[in-house]
């Protein structure tokens, strides 16, 4: 999807070079469809607990999971009900591959209440987010170059691979264990309502076509349940995108 979007953007950006003649001032239209692509520009991290049964006792871990920057795609439908005001509904998808630093307490196989501590890390932990934003738009600058600010509620659904178990290498007398690997759950997901706000700068490249850039900051706190409790994600973040807008 991101690849296809890049092609669309590239074609759109190429258009002015082929037609250097300035276009006419944009006509005020009621509706617009926007597609955008860019990066989720803030890393996301959280600490997730997990428990499982090992050696007839409860094993525990705490995983500090980090997701770096990743691609984001967005589609929006907007309606301008006045010259400077409008509303928009946007849908954003993002995906990132993260890693985790893990500390686990593994029960001793021969004795009760003698856990061994192991530490390690793992990567390839997926994080996916789908966000729906409903925004009120204000355009203080209109014309060929247009500046808009927007804000509104968001509905964010986050899906994450959570570290739920580690294995260790160990040998008699088992007083120490070494981290061997970590395994993640099938993705766990949750949704919550939050908010978003941002700004967009667009320029007309044709009578019904705009190109622009947008920064959107959103925040929601979906709570993922794990075998060891739950973890509240600070989902959302800053999405910086370039967009193509078709007005009609």
């Amino acid at each position, binding site marked *: 999807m991101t690849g296809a979007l890049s092609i669309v953007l590239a074609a759109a950006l190429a258009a002015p070079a082929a037609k250097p003649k300035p276009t006419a001032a944009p006509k005020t239209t009621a509706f617009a469809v926007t597609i955008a692509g860019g990066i989720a520009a803030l890393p996301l991290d959280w600490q997730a607990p997990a428990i499982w049964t090992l*050696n*007839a006792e409860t094993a525990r871990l705490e995983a500090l999971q980090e997701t770096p920057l990743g691609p984001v795609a967005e589609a929006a439908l907007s309606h301008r009900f006045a010259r400077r005001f409008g509303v928009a509904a946007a849908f954003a998808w993002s995906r990132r591959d993260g890693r985790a630093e893990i500390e686990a307490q593994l029960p001793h196989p*021969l004795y*009760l209440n003698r856990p061994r501590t192991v530490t390690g890390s793992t990567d390839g932990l997926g994080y996916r987010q789908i966000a729906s934003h409903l925004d009120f738009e204000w355009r203080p600058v209109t014309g060929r170059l247009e500046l808009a600010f927007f804000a509104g509620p968001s509905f964010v659904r986050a899906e994450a691979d959570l570290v739920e178990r580690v294995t260790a290498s160990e040998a008699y007398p088992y007083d120490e264990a070494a981290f061997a*690997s970590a*395994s993640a759950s*099938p993705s766990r997901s949750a949704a919550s309502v939050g908010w978003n706000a941002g700004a967009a700068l667009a320029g007309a490249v044709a009578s019904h076509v705009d190109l622009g850039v947008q920064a959107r900051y959103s925040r929601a706190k979906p709570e993922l349940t794990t075998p060891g409790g739950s973890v509240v994600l600070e989902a959302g973040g800053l999405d910086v995108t370039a967009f193509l807008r078709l007005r009609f």
Partner: protein
Amino acid sequence: MRSLRRGVGPALLLVPALLAADRPERPDRDPPGEAAALGARVEALVRRGTLSAARVQEDLDFPGRRHVRFDHRVGGVRVFGAQLVQQLDADGRTWSVSGAIDEGLALDVVPQLTADQAERAALGESPRGAIALGEPELVVRAGERRLAWMLWLRLDLGLERVFVDARTGAIVHRYSDLRTDSAVGLGAGVWGDQKKISADASGGQYLADDKLRPCPLTTYDLRYNASLTGIVLGTGRFDPAWIAQDADNDWNDAAVVDAHAYAGWTYDYFFRRHGRRGIDDQNLAVRSIVHPLPLLFQFANAAYDPFANAMLYGDGDAESGPWSGALDVVAHELTHGVTSYTWDGIYQGEPGALNEAFSDIMATGAEFFQQAAGSARLLADYFLGEDLAYRFDPARTAVRSMENPGLFCTPQLGVCDPDHYSRRYLGSADNGGVHINSGIANQAFYLMAEGGANRTSGQRVNGLGAGGREKAERIFYRGFTAYLTPSARFRDARIATLRAARELYGEAEAAQVAAAWSAMGVE
């Protein structure tokens, strides 16, 4: 037979008589009559297709015999975990049939799911990264009368056996099939304390067969059967069928729990404190026997049998519980095995007393190594067998005291355990007082470890100071296992431990060792 307590009771004396009467079946005798009927029944079930031969195992103890293992099948599909084992001789005569199957089991064995679909269903309900191994097998789960696909999933180092309902695709059962991981169970000991049990998951049962420690460490439940005990001790043969078992790995036979766990704890003590790998330092099997005799025998003792290389624990009497319920008792018996493979002190007179004392000393070392120090039940102290009695009152109900040997007496002989060489028992009872005169070396150990005065000589010993007990354990271990010989006397023990103290620590420690023996009147 080296027992913990003097005056070996009548229960033990019966054992040799049972040996003569209950030797195992020899090949030249006829099989029992009912076995032939069972054999005919097995053959009929094989003809019907209800049983199919799965494996044949030659009998190494009785050449010519073999054990044929049959799978139970319904409509050609294997019933998971259901087998019969037929023991046959060279003439094809049936000697025994063991196991159980449900002959009336019947169900539709046509699956609604393919093997691939079952595999996908299993993977879909498993952590990311799981890999299916081999081909799924269609099986019948007898208890639920359910047709299921059985497959293995590998996840990192783990291995799971997963059963997928062959009609609905639901996961109906799964468990870790990695034996060294799955077989750690729990159990409550004689005094209700929880312990881990290192077991082997085998054939749908959990066996008291430790797969985690380097040596074979197995606990046998002889089910209060004196004849069986006679056979085991008479032949030294241990049939795997007698290994104590539990259905769910949550063990509730307290005698088994403590015998098995404490044998492991003692192995760990010798390994971690002395670097020793079990009884012979080469991981010889550690075997424990519980429930050896009917309860009415009131067998209140424990023993190490060097011929069978096994430790034996009685079920106690009106005053004491099962004798595996005290860590120092178990460690004492296992140490007799260590002695057998090292200095092998003759079990009579002074060497016998030193043999007993060495077991007491290592047992006390193991107790302090594994339990917190204190004066309550299941805490470490210088009494022996204080955790055996229902009424916890060590000064009266323990077996011996290292701090004050004279607390314990033998009324029939009119003697108390001596705390000085000049008071040693010189009679012939108790193999020349092996359990009586051990008090002399026991208190020498105590004085080295803790310091104090000998009540008879009045001599005061400072002791080995900080870490004194650990030093004393090492000194006795090295002195006895490296330098004593089978006929060693108390004077030899003094020389051996002095030498060990010099080698391990130096002259200051050696001086305390000398002072301790001198306080005991051993020069």
